[in-house]
């Protein structure tokens, strides 16, 4: 009985919202079969949401005139404004969306976005609306890899417009973002490693509320993922420049769409953009660079030593564990350098130095111990040869005496 109620609830609840329709009485399909093929496999089709929910009209009427009569609320092909409103009818309805666990602020967010503002304030029909990103009749779940808004597909979807020169030219928006992104550390992780956790366009710019991050929000956008870097950056001397509104924060050193893997050489390339090489600030940066380089070099050298020791048959489990700790400290130096505090970075560098030296010394001691074992064979064999000689002489004496006697 309980199962019956459960089934009745799950089937009945969406039906009660008026989503489900009896397809056998839907006469739109008789002419619009191609759209129906798309719709029936879509996320909406599977929930029984059919034609009139978006297009209005009366699908139960066989007669085309009656089906599209004004009294039926027939919309036909909705324009961009209508699309946003039609989608928003359900998707901003908390009662309806709660069942699916979908948030309902998309329409509100869209209205705050650059796209939404252009549409609603300037009546600019070039901007994308819901269907431009999610699809029309064939909308699938955002977690479906075939969805245009699945993380792996987001950059390509955005690039459909943002890579279109004709479309972007009037707005003065650069069009090389996709190419830069594709070649960036994020793009390579997404396209080559298929890492869907990596930052795509929407991670920084938002999705429905898409806006370019302003100068003051750059650290916030990057800081969504790079939290430690952000926290440390806010402690740095550069953080004071944020309020002045003319310092592009993370972008100043790392750029934006084309971010490349970070190396210590960035101190040579990025600092000079603002600081003269003779300045104290530049020199401070070079000192930090020195700490980072040394720590990385020490780690690499020690890793090689441990690896070789392992190949040579030494037990290196403990050293490997200490090396992991040193590696963690080197990783910590990455975010810590954003404080631009020599003292903070030096504290970590000191720990790396101590740990790597410890490991190197232990391995050296182990090798020396092995060497000592081999050296110890010399006195051992000297003792053995002396003993053997003494016993041999004694044996000869005994044999000689024995022979003389008998």
């Amino acid at each position, binding site marked *: 009985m309980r199962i019956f109620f459960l089934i009745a609830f799950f089937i009945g609840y969406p039906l009660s919202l008026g989503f489900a329709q009896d397809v056998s009485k839907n006469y739109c399909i008789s002419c619009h079969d191609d759209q129906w093929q798309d719709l029936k496999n879509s996320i909406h089709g599977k929930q029984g949401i059919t034609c009139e929910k978006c297009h209005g009209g009366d699908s139960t009427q066989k007669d085309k005139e009656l089906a599209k009569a004004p009294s039926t609320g027939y919309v036909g092909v909705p324009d961009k404004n209508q699309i946003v409103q039609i989608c928003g009818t359900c998707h901003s309805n908390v009662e309806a969306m709660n069942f699916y666990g979908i948030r309902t602020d998309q329409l509100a967010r869209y209205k705050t976005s650059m796209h939404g503002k252009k549409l609603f304030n300037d009546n600019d029909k070039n901007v994308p609306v819901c269907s431009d990103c999610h699809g029309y009749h064939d909308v699938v779940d955002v977690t479906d890899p075939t969805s245009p808004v699945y993380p792996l597909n987001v950059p390509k979807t955005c690039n459909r417009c943002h890579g279109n020169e004709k479309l972007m030219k009037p707005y003065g928006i650069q069009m090389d973002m996709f190419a830069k992104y594709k070649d960036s550390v994020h793009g390579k992780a997404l396209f080559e490693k298929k890492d869907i956790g990596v930052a795509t366009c929407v991670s920084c710019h938002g999705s429905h509320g898409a806006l370019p991050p302003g100068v003051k929000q750059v650290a916030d956008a990057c800081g969504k993922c790079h939290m430690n870097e952000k926290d440390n950056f806010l402690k740095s001397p550069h953080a004071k420049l944020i309020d002045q509104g003319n310092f592009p924060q993370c972008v100043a050193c790392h750029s934006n769409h084309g971010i490349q893997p970070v190396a210590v050489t960035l101190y040579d390339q990025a600092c000079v953009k603002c600081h003269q090489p003779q300045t104290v600030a530049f020199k401070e940066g070079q000192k930090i660079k020195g700490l980072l380089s040394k720590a990385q070099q020490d780690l690499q050298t020690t890793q090689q030593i441990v690896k070789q020791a392992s190949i040579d048959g030494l037990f290196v489990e403990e050293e490997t564990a200490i090396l992991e700790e040193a590696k963690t400290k080197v990783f910590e130096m990455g975010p810590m350098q954003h404080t631009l505090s020599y003292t903070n970075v030096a504290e970590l560098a000191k720990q790396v130095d101590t740990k790597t030296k410890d490991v190197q010394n232990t391995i050296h001691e182990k090798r020396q111990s092995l060497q000592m074992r081999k050296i110890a064979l010399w006195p051992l064999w000297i003792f053995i040869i002396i003993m053997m000689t003494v016993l041999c002489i004694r*044996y000869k004496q005994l*044999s000689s005496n*024995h022979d003389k006697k008998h």
Partner: protein
Amino acid sequence: MIKKTIGAWFEKRFDVKAIQEPLEYQLRKPLPGHISWFHTLGSMSLFLFASQIVTGILLLIYYRPTADEAFESVKFIMTKPYMGWLFRQIHAWGANLMILIVFLHMLRTFITGSFKKPRELTWMIGVGLFILTLIFGFTGYLLPWNQLAYWATTVGTEIAGAVPLIGEPMKLFMRGGPVVGGETLSRFFVIHVIILPWLVFFLVAVHLFLVRFQGMSTMDPVDKEKPVKKGEGIPFFPHHIVKEGVVFFFVLGVLITLSIMLPFELGEKADPLKTPDGIKPEWYFMSMYQVIKYFPKLVGIFVVGLAPMLLLIWPFMDKSSQRVPSKRPVSMLVGVLTILSLLIFGILGTLSETKQTFFGKTYDFDIYGVPHLINNSPVKANIEHH
């Protein structure tokens, strides 16, 4: 003064003379004149057995016989306790040397015909001791619980399982379950550290008693042995003992040198889900392992099982009364052929399933040890592929 006091203390309580006289007799009992350096091999086997007992006890202090802890405990022994590494290496090399020296001791006995009447029983106990030494090696090999040990034991117990009728229950008994696991380790541990040492101890005691009681064999024909008279031959003490001392120091040096220069690596921990390539037994089982491959399973096991049986009953098969090797050509031929077959099959077993380069040419040795020249020419390789 102290010696006298202690002597007096014992004399008041025991009939010391009654004990002293036979001991004195045994100590001064002359050995036959032909006794050579090779006659020290028996004592060296005993020395190595004692060394195994001592180092084994030291290893037992830290060794843990469970599947979870065995490997780690051996690693601990090799890295932490003072000289732990040395005791483990001496134990491992000692096992190998013991097998070799026991074998050489048997070979000497075979060549000098010492196994013949009236010493058949001494020989049979010796064969038993040799087999037990091999079982010592087999059970001890598993104890470090590393990959090689695990899979060699899997193969070894599988071979035992193929014996008709008793094979399957024997395999189950050895493994303590359908596969080699923690139960097998427990069983092998008990066999290795309790059953075998005591068994070997008592058999050695009987073996030594018989050797001393019947005396060392002379080179005289069977039933024509003349007892070595007092004043003839070589006194056991101090002459022979000094000789054994020389060999003892040499074996000790070799044992420690091997332990330091060629240490046994522990390798990777046993992983029942990861079968390594080319699993092979230790060198002392290699020839048997290779022989099995050339015959159908049951025939192979029969052939391999025949060898220890023949060894055991050899004194009753070699009926000639002569002990001098030159007067026993058939026996010597059998001996030479046996040694050669052990060497050849051992080498074939070692080479099988490996790639070896000789004179710049690489050969792929199949499971039978037959070499196949690997064609390095890409064109020819391509043609062959098609």
